[in-house]
């Protein structure tokens, strides 16, 4: 009996370790076979990816995939494909990608050097930085006012990492997703919630009483968003990048930006000239 147990344990471990190694390498071939491109995205990060009032799963990142990346991938595989969406959070997105459960992460993932060792990133499609959401009139005005304050962040996010390393005087509380962190702020479990500025504006706009909240502080981190894919899949990366590049060149990207972030968009957030220059520099303009 004991021997059988150890065999079972050994086989289980071996399987769990071997499966990612034995998986498919060529995403385009996989998409061609199945006719489906599976993206990992968010359900609670407006306006990038969220469930809207009509219970539809929409957002800026999803539109970029549908309108810019999908045509390129279809061209590469030579047939029409479908986009399928799966929920992926900061702690689950890289494992989902490595295990082939999703083919592309298109949500709010920051392109960092550490992550680049494990996954490949597309061209940057959005640029923001970390700030704080606080109750109006809060003594917290910037990252320098955090001594002894309780600050919520998302587990697995770059913001949590920076706070832990550089601002240990804050009491960090880490929640798995945005709704839980915001609930904690709403009820006073924490004094501030830190995330990428654009997401905080999105959250504030969606709050029951938007006027009660303020987004404060200068960017204390740089957060360029990219779409992530399995490492070393050059053909697939080329297709994704070509889609985004075409979008920047034709202006289609900026049209999509306007629908979400323009004056009539879900979240008015005019693009600064610096950000525009940053995005265009990627395609040599």
């Amino acid at each position, binding site marked *: 009996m004991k021997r059988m147990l150890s065999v079972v344990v050994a086989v289980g471990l071996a399987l769990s370790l071997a499966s990612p190694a034995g998986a498919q390498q060529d995403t385009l071939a996989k998409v061609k076979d199945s006719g489906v491109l599976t993206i990992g995205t968010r359900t609670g990060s407006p306006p990038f990816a969220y469930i809207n009032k009509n219970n539809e799963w929409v957002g800026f990142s999803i539109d970029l995939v549908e309108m810019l990346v999908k045509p390129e991938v279809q061209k590469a595989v030579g047939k029409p494909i479908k986009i399928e969406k799966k929920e992926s959070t900061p702690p689950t997105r890289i494992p989902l990608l490595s295990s082939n459960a999703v083919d592309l992460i298109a949500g709010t993932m920051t392109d960092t050097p550490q992550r680049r060792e494990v996954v490949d990133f597309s061209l940057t499609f959005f640029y923001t930085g970390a700030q704080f959401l606080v109750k109006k009139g809060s003594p917290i005005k910037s990252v320098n006012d955090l001594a002894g304050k309780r600050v919520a962040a998302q587990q697995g996010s770059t913001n949590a990492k920076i706070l832990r390393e550089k601002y240990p005087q804050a009491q960090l509380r880490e929640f798995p997703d945005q709704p839980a962190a915001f609930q*904690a702020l709403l009820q006073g*479990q924490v004094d501030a919630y830190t995330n990428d500025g654009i997401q905080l504006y999105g959250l504030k706009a969606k709050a029951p009483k938007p006027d009660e909240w303020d987004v404060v502080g200068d960017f204390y981190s740089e957060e360029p968003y990219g779409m992530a894919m399995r490492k070393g899949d050059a053909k697939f990366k080329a297709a994704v990048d070509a889609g985004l590049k075409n979008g920047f060149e034709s202006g289609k990207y900026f049209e999509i930006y306007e629908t979400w972030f323009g004056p009539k968009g879900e979240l008015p957030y005019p693009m600064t000239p610096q950000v525009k220059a940053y995005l265009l520099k990627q395609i040599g303009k």
Partner: protein
Amino acid sequence: MNYQFKWSVLWSGQSGVWLLQGLITTVEISALAWVLAAALGILSGALRTVPWKPARALATFYVEFFRNVPLLVWMFFWYFGVPPLLPRAVQDWIFNHGAEFWAGTFALGVYHGARMSEVIRSGIQAIPRTQFEASVAMGLTTFQAYRLVIVPIALRLIVPPATSESLNLLKNSSVALTISVAELTFQTRQIETYTAKAIEALTAGTVIYLVLCVGIAAIMARVERRFAIPGLIARGG
């Protein structure tokens, strides 16, 4: 898929310290919650068998209410639902003094107390009714009969299922990460954030849980042998 394994992430940098901190938090929250669960379980399990209807009804309500709602919901209940009932100054004080940990402990302890209760009740009901009647005939009150005779025998009968339940409690403590308790699973995710090496981090967590649980199971197997009542438990091979 060309996943590059890099096991050194587990002992380079701060990973080792984090895993140790996570392990300590997991053991702490589980031990405290276990004490709570055992106390509530013994009390409500015994009450469910006493010859007094209101006590049985109260214990039944506790068991059915707490074991039939998901643990995750209880975590949110104790963390988000309970504090607003307290005065503002008290709230601020507990939020600054580990509200997450205590909410997690209560959620885990009260939930598993309800499950433990069923284990204890089955142990009590496995004891022939005549045992209780004999105790009362000897002049013991109902309370004395339970305290001195019924519960001690039941506890010796239920070691195997109670062990299972305790291991469940230990593993379920990982749900506390949803309310920001930095236990073992939380720390494995943190390592993943820093190193982007998910499989290594998850494997480390898995092995630690496995070793911890197998260790407890081995100790409990000794306890079971030591306290088995000859004649009441048939010994198998």
